[in-house]
């Protein structure tokens, strides 16, 4: 998938799953605050990325993903 396709797909999926306005998802927006993630709902983000792209975000690398742009980067680099 191209980066543009990933962005369109994941944004729509996250907006639906976390019940937020898709317009709030911008490349520089902070993921945790925007999606209102806590220690449990973070698992749902990881699950979506794994199910959609076969990419399991490792525990060690999780702290490096703070914005949506960084999430897109991660998926693009690791997708199979």
């Amino acid at each position, binding site marked *: 998938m191209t980066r543009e396709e990933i962005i369109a797909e994941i944004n729509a999926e996250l907006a639906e799953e976390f019940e937020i306005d898709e317009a709030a998802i911008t490349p520089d927006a902070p993921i945790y605050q925007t999606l*209102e993630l806590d220690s*449990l709902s973070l*698992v*749902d983000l990881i*699950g979506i990325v*794994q*199910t959609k792209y076969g990419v*399991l975000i490792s525990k060690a690398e999780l702290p490096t993903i703070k914005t949506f742009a960084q999430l897109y980067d991660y998926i693009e680099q690791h997708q199979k």
Partner: protein
Amino acid sequence: MGIWSCIGTTLDEVRDALYQGKSGIIFSQERKDAGFRSALVGNVPKVDLKAYVPRNLRNFMPEEAQYGYIATKQALDNAGIDEDYLNTHEVGIIYGNDSVAEATMNSLDKFRQANSTVACGSGAIFQSMNSNITMNLACLFKLRGINLTASAACASGSQSIGLAAMLISQGLQDCVVCGGAEENNMYGIASFDGIQAFSIRESEPEKASRPFDAGRDGLVPSGGGATIVLESYEHAVKRGANIIAEIVSWGFSGNGDHISTPNVAGPARSLELCLRNGGIDPKQIGYINAHATSTVIGDRREAQAIAQLFGERTVPVTSTKSQTGHEMWMAGASELIYSTLMMKNGFIAGNINFENPDEETACINVVPETKETHFDMFLSNSFGFGGTNSTLIVKNI
């Protein structure tokens, strides 16, 4: 009291539906297409909790917890118990539930499809536990007293009320939220359909549930949620509550017999114990809300147990399942609410679809049509698989 059922989602709607003899049963094409032998079901509206519970908390709530939530919100509102009160008093919860089929199936389907446990989702562990209703409601309503799920098959709702009444009478709790809820999706009862326990009168859904009638051919599954706020008399008076009714006594028993075929002795002992615990003479009971689900054997055995304790064709008896179908884990609580609404509004809802008894159900006085009458005390039966029996007596205030 609070209710979410196939005959109404407010106490007023339910009272009117009971009086009018309205049926909540429909034919579900979805179930037929999926392979059900009987596609009859209670038409319970889905709950939309978006306005009440944020996504991250709603994520822990399967269908039955959503019904439990909306019924409990109504009940607390009707009881005049607000957030401030719950934050400053120790209120408990005992709630009936006995299945988590859809939530468990959904999460395990995702697990098997993705070969990953993460795919189950963060809410799955909570949604797939039988105590999901009490765990969710205790957290959402800040309930800090007893926190317990009663799993006793189709007597779960009734047992939850009996247990709560016992804790209160022992002085261990002042106020307990109790009731029962039942998932109403097809997965919860697919295997129940498989053992051919359901009515197949699919051409006439509203006539399918016909407890005590000679033409009955099985039960109709339904679901929803029903909540009662139970408190000690002193506690209710002290906070200026609108006291609706009093739980006079609870009786219970086990058949110690067959897992699905009921007997007469077990239910009779439950009735007898309830009367004895309350020091009640059968003549004081103005109405019996029967467990009768519209199965051939179950209705016969209950009729015989009632006749054994009350004499033949004496006290008025109906089964509100004729209108609602069998609300299973919720039934003991919802039927206490239905009966209380009748008692407070001066009528007995007719046992719709009752035309003729069979030889063994002729021993009781089934009221076929709504009758305006006054009564101040009723008895409600709930019996379940495994021979678990529960009986409650309620008195007007």
